[in-house]
């Protein structure tokens, strides 16, 4: 997205223009959701955090500076919300460790259908990415997937560009190692997972 387009969107949002909000929403909704989904690895959490991110944009729309880079602003809010959620959920898990078996849910993502339809390489990359710690995952997602500039990604993560460069380097090495470790899953296994899941 061009900075001029961003400036026009931000100007519209500052004026409380619903059409400007709609344009921003269409541009960034899927990007934010994908980012949050891969970060949290839970559809429910990603949906909730996505809602909160957009509501925060609306609440702060008039206070945005005219030169705000909307992508960086949104990803910063989404990322901070994720880390806040993570800290609170870790506290809850430690406080209720003995009760965890009462909850039947596991991570709802990815579904067996997603696993089967994704290409083998994509599946391996998804698995390898999911195995990384969240701070490495977020760096790879921001720079590698969302193609934010390094300075934008550094601002989103609240670190210096130099620290970002080091973190990216480590994350990339971790991903490469995880990809080497990830076993190839036979297609038959994925098909069985679908049959079991959908009862066909």
């Amino acid at each position: 997205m061009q900075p001029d387009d961003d400036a026009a969107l931000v100007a519209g949002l500052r004026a409380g223009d619903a059409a400007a909000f709609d344009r921003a929403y269409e541009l960034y909704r899927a990007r934010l959701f994908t980012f949050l989904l891969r970060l949290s690895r839970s559809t429910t959490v990603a949906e909730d955090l996505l809602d909160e991110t957009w509501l925060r944009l609306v609440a702060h729309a008039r206070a945005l500076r005219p030169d705000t880079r909307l992508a960086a602003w949104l990803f910063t809010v989404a990322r901070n919300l994720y880390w806040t959620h993570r800290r609170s959920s870790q506290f809850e898990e430690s406080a209720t460790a003995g009760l965890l078996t009462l909850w039947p849910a596991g991570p709802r993502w990815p579904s067996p259908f997603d696993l089967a339809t994704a290409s083998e390489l994509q599946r391996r990359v998804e698995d390898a990415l999911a195995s990384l710690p969240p701070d490495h995952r977020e760096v790879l997602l921001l720079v590698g997937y969302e193609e934010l500039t390094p300075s934008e990604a550094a601002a989103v993560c609240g670190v210096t560009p130099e620290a970002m460069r080091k973190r990216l380097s480590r994350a990339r090495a971790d991903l490469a190692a995880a990809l080497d470790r990830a076993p190839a899953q036979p297609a038959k296994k994925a098909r069985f997972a679908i049959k079991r899941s959908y009862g066909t």
Partner: protein
Amino acid sequence: MNPSDTHDDPIMDALRELHRWDVSAVRARRLRERCHRSLAAQQPLTRGRQDRATTLSRRTLRVAVGAWCCVYLFETLRRAAAFYWF
């Protein structure tokens, strides 16, 4: 690793090829409507808050200037009295 070199990297290329996900159409529409309502409801509220803040700061400034003038006048009179009459 230089972040600007990520375009020549097979690992980063593989990342770029990953699928993009989105929420359901129903959920997306609900959230949009909620944000529209919030955007519409915020306008007069924000203006009211800004007006109140402006009025408060002006009032504070007036009181401060008035107090400073009183102190200045009192001190001038006191010194004049001390010089001429005592």
